[in-house]
């Protein structure tokens, strides 16, 4: 029900946001804010850390949906770069990446480019997954950014492409 409300909000808000844009974000896929993601689908970093070392038969698909430069600097081990979801090209890459996954697959999204309520990427990525019919989606919560809420806490990282 909450997911349905979220999608309804997205469908209602997108045209309004686009209409209000002043050209500052030309080329952007304007989307819902991270703060509109239901709490039940928001995951705390500490929660993910506990499961990172567990060898699961069906490991989650862990996707970084923000800047590629940031991904190359540092990312969560095992995560895959999936395109900046705020941009049409990025969202297209993202869609292609998840297209072959089963709809009930656990997908964990993260970005951490900006404070949670200013992140332009996780909201559109989350909405896209629901639009595609995925039913098991979580989004990692970074209150400040990936540097502060993950790297500075000493959680594991990988570097490079």
């Amino acid at each position, binding site marked *: 029900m909450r997911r349905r409300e979220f999608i309804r909000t997205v469908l209602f808000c997108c045209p309004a946001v686009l209409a209000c844009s002043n050209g*500052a974000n030309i080329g952007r896929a304007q989307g819902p804010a991270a703060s509109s993601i239901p709490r039940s689908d928001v995951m705390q970093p500490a929660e993910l850390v506990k499961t990172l070392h567990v060898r699961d038969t069906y490991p989650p698909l862990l996707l970084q949906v923000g800047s590629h430069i940031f991904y190359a600097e540092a990312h969560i081990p095992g995560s895959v770069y999936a395109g900046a979801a705020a941009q049409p090209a990025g969202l297209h890459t993202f869609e292609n990446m998840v297209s072959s996954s089963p709809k009930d697959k656990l997908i964990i999204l993260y970005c951490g480019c900006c404070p949670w309520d200013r992140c332009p990427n996780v909201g559109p990525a989350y909405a896209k997954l629901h639009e595609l019919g995925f039913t098991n989606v979580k989004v990692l919560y970074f209150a400040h950014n990936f540097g502060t809420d993950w790297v500075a806490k000493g959680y594991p990282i990988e570097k490079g492409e």
Partner: protein
Amino acid sequence: MISNYLTRFSFIRHRGILAGFVFTVLLGVGPLRAEQPGRSLLHKPAPQFARKDLSGKQVDLRTFRGRVVLLNFWATWCAPCQQELPHFAAWQKQYGPAGLQIISVAMDDDQAMVRTTERRLDLNFPVIMGDERLGTLYGGILGLPITYLIGRDGKALARFEGEADLDAMENKIQALLRRR
């Protein structure tokens, strides 16, 4: 009866002391836990870099020795960054003659969008494209915006992360410009 009261009071008081202790420890530990990797760069020479800006002109940090440098990391998709940039353009105009040099590093993957923003905001300072090497050099740029203030002696003296207090930043710039 009285001794029961005293025992209970003593227990409450001890709980209060314990809570106070825990609170103090948390206060002390909190900032350490939240410490940013880039903080370790402060009061040391700012990492050297030389790159071409969007107009093709070479930007070499070394050549700005003797000036106060505001080094800002931003991106076109970062909303707080978009709010800061016009202020930086105004400061470049206002404090440039007194020795301020603003250098901005766009952490975008796409240069075309940076060019659009540069034109739209009429940025009057060099804009260079960043990458993971430059980000790592500056302590890991893993969240935006991030701004360093570099003194006339080339040392990184302040770091602002997230939605910065622009008044505090401007005060710091003024103080650094006064130093000779």
